[in-house]
């Protein structure tokens, strides 16, 4: 009955993988199956994504549209190039659907840090991703 070890092995393997992704690639410790919830302030409420769209005669910061909220949440939780690229492509496609020119999408993922004593909050850039629209 060695199969009974399978759930435990899965739990340990996923948790170790999550630790690697969080420590090396910026995955929020709250997500990914590593049991880092309620352990740190580095989570979705204190991460945000700024979107800037550039085109000739245009450089505009965008509000997050509802249709892209899930992609934004993914990119904020795990700001790696493939998730940021997926978000940027979504932004570019949405701009084109709405008849607006877009040549470049710049995404900046910010994390809020709090002072140890005063709790003063400051935003720190976590990742910047530039997507040149083909």
């Amino acid at each position: 009955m060695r199969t009974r070890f399978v759930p435990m092995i899965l739990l340990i393997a996923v948790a170790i993988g999550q630790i690697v992704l969080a420590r090396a690639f910026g995955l929020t410790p709250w997500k990914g199956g590593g049991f880092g919830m309620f352990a740190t302030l580095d989570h979705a409420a204190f991460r945000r994504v700024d979107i800037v769209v550039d085109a000739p005669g245009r450089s505009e910061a965008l509000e997050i549209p509802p249709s892209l909220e899930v992609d934004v949440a993914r990119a904020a939780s795990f700001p790696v190039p493939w998730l940021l690229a997926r978000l940027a492509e979504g932004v570019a496609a949405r701009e084109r659907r709405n008849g607006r020119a877009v040549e470049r999408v710049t995404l900046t993922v910010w994390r809020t840090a709090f002072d140890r004593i005063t709790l003063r909050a400051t935003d720190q850039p976590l990742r910047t991703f530039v997507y040149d629209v083909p």
Partner: protein
Amino acid sequence: MLDTVLRLTAIAVLLRPMGPWFVQPALLALGAVALISRRWLRRSSLWAAVSLTVAIRIADDWPLADNHIYLLAYWALAIALALRAEDAPAALATTSRWLLGFAFVFAVLWKVVWSPDFLDQRFFRVTLLTDPRFTEVTMLIGGLSAADLAADRAALAPLPHGAELIDPPVIAEPPRLKAFAAISTWGVVVLEAVVAALMLAGSRAARLRHAALLLFCIVTYALAPVAGFGWLLLVMGLAQVDPAHVWLARTYVAVFLAVLFYSEVPWPGLLLDAIR
């Protein structure tokens, strides 16, 4: 005892429907079938299907699923495998002990080793002031007014692009709230470490193990808004109860129901209104 464990697991699945359209109906149907039919309740294939469906839900919006969704997938798989064993209750008891032990080990490691802002109490100081799910608890225990809390939340909002004010506003933290943050910080980490150690210690520590897990659930889920996690921990604890200890099994069921009431009755708000 095994039937109660399986039924409560099915109830936990039904109480918190999850996932996209192609996952939620399947999970609800599996949970309902498990409750209606005792034959299906004890079928390994049903629990394997629950585990697979939850895994699909995790993969579909990875990495956004919460940790207890992962634990539910492991637990449903553990049930599926245990139901194929000669002594299913014993197999499930052992697996649940390991799953709980390692889940708590990783929870403690994150708090103690890899988080820079937990042991210095920043996590609870900021969370109590900013997380809307703790608003009533913060006002009740910390003695803050709604206006104080709103001012603190405004003061804790960062300026865009890393800018800082020359003369930033001071955050009002009553001593009671700071003390509550300190107690929460050390209470959570000590209790989680005790549960982890006792779960992995083997059958020698059975009574203490149950006491620690029940205490953790009674205290934590009165305040933490994650009932789904609490139900899962309690069901996994119940799976380890000796069938002769009926009173202990009933205690687990009672705490399962208490967590249900914690999640559905806004008791901090009602208490706050009553003392105003």
